[in-house]
Structure formats: C-alpha cells, structure tokens
C-alpha cells in the first residue's frame, strides 16, 4: 500500500538529486566547445520538446488549445512577457471554449 506522504518525499528526493549531482561530480570548468555549445542549446531544446505536441492536449480539447497556442506564438513573437503570453493563451482557450457547443 503506497503512503502518499512517503511517495511525495521520494519524489522530492529524485527531483532534488539531478539538480545537485553535477555540483558534486564536476567542479572544474568544461573547456570543450562542443559540450559548451551543447549546454547552451539545451534549454531551448528541452522547452521546445516539453511544449510540442503536449500543448495541443493541455486544455482537454484541441479546439481550444490550438487557438490558445497560436495566440501564445503571436504574443511571444512580439516579445511580450511570460505572464502576458500565458494569460493571452488562457483567455483565448477559455473564450473559444465558450463558442464550442
């Protein structure tokens, strides 16, 4: 029988460990241009992968998620802040949801 509190503590542990293991294992500066470039591209890569295609099912209905996604892309393209982009996507998904019978 799984105890929810113990499960949460274990989740916290395996979330914390990846965050700090590299600090314990690698103390020297990395010189390789390949690895340095790789690490600089990682955030863009991982956020792209986390977003697409999952955003399409994020609202439970692709008919509200796709307009929300398009609005988010448009606002981000215009370099609006994180909050403005997020709220724009939420409002769009909500409003299109009202139009769907």
């Amino acid at each position, binding site marked *: 029988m799984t105890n929810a509190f113990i499960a949460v503590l274990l989740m916290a542990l395996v979330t914390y460990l990846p965050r700090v293991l590299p600090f314990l294992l690698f103390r020297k500066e990395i010189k390789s241009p390949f690895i340095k470039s790789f690490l600089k591209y990682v955030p863009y890569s991982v956020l792209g992968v986390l977003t697409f295609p999952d955003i399409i099912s994020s609202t439970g209905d692709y008919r509200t998620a796709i307009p929300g996604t398009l609005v988010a892309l448009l606002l981000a393209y215009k370099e609006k802040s994180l909050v403005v982009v997020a709220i724009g996507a*939420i409002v769009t998904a909500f409003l299109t949801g009202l139009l769907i019978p």
Partner: protein
Amino acid sequence: MSISNNTNTQFAYGFKRGLPIAFGYIPVSFTFGLMATSGGLPVWLTIFISLSNLTSAGQFAGTSLILAGAGYLEIILTTFLINIRYMLMSLSLSQKIEPGITLVQRLIFGFGITDETFSVASLESGRLSYPYLIGLITGPIAGWTMGTGFGAMISSALPEAIANAMGIALYGMFIAIILPPAKRLGPVFIVVLASIGINLVLLYLPLFSFISAGFRIIIATILGAGLGAYLFPIAQEESVEEHQ
C-alpha cells in the same frame, strides 16, 4: 554583474528577474492545486508537494501516479526520468556561476533550479553570484507554493471551463521563453525545430513506442542540442544571445 556589487543589490536584481517567473507560476501551480485536491489529496499535502518538489512535469506525473495508486518504484522512476534534464541544467549552470560559490551554497540554490529559473540565469551576461541565485529562486518558490495553495483551497468553487483553459499556461510560458531568441538567432531556431521534430518521430512512430515520455524528452533534447552543437558550435566566451 561583478563580484564587487554588494550582496543586497545582487539579491534584489535576482529577485526582480525571478518575479515574472513567480507570476507565471501562479496559474500553473493553481491548476496543479486544483487537480491534486479534486483528485483526493489533502490540501496540506498538495501544498507540500509543490514546496518540496518545485517542478512542473515531474510532480504532475508523480501526483497522478499517487492518485492512481501506483507503487513507490514506478513513482520514483517516472519522476526521476522526467527530472534528469535538471542534471544538464545544473551542469550548464555550474560553468556559469562564480567559481568561489561553496558546495553548501550550490546545494542550497540547486533546489531552486527549474526550466524557467535556469533559462533566465543562463541568459544573464557574466558570472552568477550566490545572492543573485538566491534572489532569483525566492519569488518562483513562493509563487509556485502559493498558487498551489489557492488552487487547492478553491478547487470545488472554480468552473471547469476556466480550470481547463488554465492547463495551457505552462506551455504559453515555455513559448514566451524560446520564441524571441529563436526568432533572432538561426541556430536556436533550427535546434528548437529539430528537437521538436525528433520528439514527434519518437512519439508517433510505432517503432519507438517502447520509449517512455521521460526518456523521449531526454533523447530528443540530447539529439537536438547535440545537432546544434555539431552544426553551430559557439566560440569561447560568446553567449548564445550574441551569436549571430
């Protein structure tokens, strides 16, 4: 950012940089609080999940497994796989922080590494100080925890239509982070497209259906960023932002 700047200034600057993340977290964590308590978890435990895990995908997956009655090993493996990406991020950050930051300080600010705090920190110019990093993670920790609390307490009162629409918030934030640099810089644009392309192939080709969601994210990230590093290596001491 230089070492000579005083601690308060650095903390205040970091805190300011973390505020948009904190506000961005509120709708997302609100949704999480809503989901977890409506699924049957007590309010205090739902808030404790956000405070102790401070992550989106990992705790969403772990919590849904708890609600589904899964075993410890399944919960640990799934959460760990989703969170392995933090190793890449802290490895990257370990190259960018001031070398004088002690191990204990690393163990403390490391708790606050998320996709968003990492993105903001890694796009700063110059070395990162410990007060800056603590300032940066303070707002997001508070926003993530408080948003969860609001959602957990309000869960029965909010109309379903609004709760559903809020599910897109996290992804909207991700788009807001990646699109502006991808628009300006060809290599970043190609890395993002390639990574997403690899992700779609792994997700939809039946040949790769044995790969779990967590591993899929890891593989697509490593291949996409690796391709970028191979095709468009960045010269030493040059940041992505300056790379044209």
